[in-house]
């Protein structure tokens, strides 16, 4: 092992001790949770909760997936020299980043209900009457705005010399952008994009307000029927488990993708 990934030995040890304490505290929480766990209740609502996890995943994967595809053109529009295109993108991003997700969801779900006849005429009503589709659409629009802003920042923070180097090699601007700038921009954007994914998982809980039965929706249903507060704790454990798993997996992916950038270990 080389010296540079060790750090001061006592610092490392303190870090390890902190982690041990955290695991210990986590186990204490888990044990408390298991002792209050009502297995009958779990038998009754467990399968529903699993379906809820599925719905949450579907919502997040659809919106983050489509969002990541649409975010790039929006980011490019924000970087465009064309004033009209630039301002349109800016307006879109400002609106969706400056207003609450819940208000956006109401705007899409209840707001479009007002135009039912027009929607039926163009055969879109089946889409907008379904709370799941409306939530997916709202979340897509929302995450696109955030991801576009992340990408814009990342693209802008790639050093200008990279453009010049591409030019010096005789590459066209398009090729330079696709093969030189964009891969580096995505590396910079990796961490904030991971945060955005986690934010979407948390944010998707608001879909329960328009009767989507995701994890949160299932929890509210189970609580309204059983009046047992522990269902909220189940949801908390579920969300924490999902978020932490994704965080750890993401940091693994990040380490793997940036391994060529770190100082080489001899």
């Amino acid at each position, binding site marked *: 092992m080389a010296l540079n990934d060790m750090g001061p030995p006592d610092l490392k040890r*303190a870090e390890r*001790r*902190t*982690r*041990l*304490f*955290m695991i*210990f*505290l*986590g186990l204490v929480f888990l044990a408390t949770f298991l002792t209050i766990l009502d297995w009958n209740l779990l038998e009754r609502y467990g399968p529903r909760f699993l379906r809820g996890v599925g719905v949450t995943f579907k919502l997040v994967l659809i919106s983050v997936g489509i969002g990541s595809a649409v975010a790039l053109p929006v980011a490019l529009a924000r970087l465009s020299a064309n004033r009209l295109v630039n301002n349109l993108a800016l307006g879109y991003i*400002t*609106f969706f980043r*400056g*207003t*609450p*997700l*819940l*208000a*956006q969801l*109401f*705007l899409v779900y*209840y*707001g*479009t*209900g*007002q*135009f039912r006849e027009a929607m039926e005429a163009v055969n879109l009503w089946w889409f907008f009457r379904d709370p799941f589709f409306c939530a997916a659409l709202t979340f897509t629009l929302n995450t696109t705005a955030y991801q576009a802003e992340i990408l814009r920042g990342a693209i802008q923070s790639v050093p200008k010399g990279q453009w010049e180097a591409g030019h010096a090699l005789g590459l066209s601007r398009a090729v330079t952008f696709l093969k030189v700038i964009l891969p580096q921009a995505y590396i910079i954007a990796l961490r904030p994009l991971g945060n955005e994914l*986690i934010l979407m*998982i*948390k*944010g*998707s*809980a*608001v879909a*329960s*307000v328009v009767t989507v039965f995701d994890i*949160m929706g299932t*929890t*509210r249903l189970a*609580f309204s029927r059983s009046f047992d*507060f522990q269902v*909220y*704790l189940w*949801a*908390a454990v579920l*969300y*924490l488990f999902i*978020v*932490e798993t994704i965080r750890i997996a993401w940091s693994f992916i990040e380490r793997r993708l940036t391994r060529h950038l770190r100082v080489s270990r001899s």
Partner: protein
Amino acid sequence: MTELIGLLSFGSDGWGDELLEGAFLTLRLALATLPFGLVIGLCVALLKNAESPALQALGNLYTTIFRGLPELLTLFIIYFGGQILLKEMLDVVAPGTTVEVSSFVAGIIALSIVFGAFASEVFLAAIRAVPKGQGEAAAALGLSRWQGFRLVLFPQLFRLALPGLGNLWLVLLKDTALVSVIALDDLLRQTNVAVGVTKEPFFFYLVACLLYLAMSLVSTTCVALLEKRYNRGFAGSR
């Protein structure tokens, strides 16, 4: 179009005053949350910066939990959980009394817990960015630990934390919309009421969004002014 504008008029037949009242409540909730959130954030950051691994672990656990939970879930846990807890405690003293947790207070508690979790990360980064020599210099001048923190370290770390805290304030402002779900008459809930009566959902939700947007934009300007003021000694280096 004029009919729609008419719906926004003040007085008994328009919704303008109700919406503004809601916006005012939203703003009050966010402003009332801010000091609690900042204090929690600073305390948790100091825990995470402490020497004892146990304290560090406690701080880390707090952040992990409340950054990982959806804000809506935290709100429900505080609102319903607080109600149950209070009832159980009151049953010991005076059985049979009913309690209701005010949704405004539940909102403040839940939002400041979440704000504190995020703010602690911002404060921690700022604490670590202030050179160690500053604390040592304060001690060498004979200032007590508390004096050194209050007079020397805090002003410096607050300047560094300001941009991050500004972002968190914007997030907080938007998160207040969630309290409409536990029946607090904030902007979003007043809008729901207006929609229920007028059957003009698209228009009213759009107006609500624009009001939120206006609050966000005003906040951005204020934060920029604050940052400028805190950076005034650094004009050359920036």
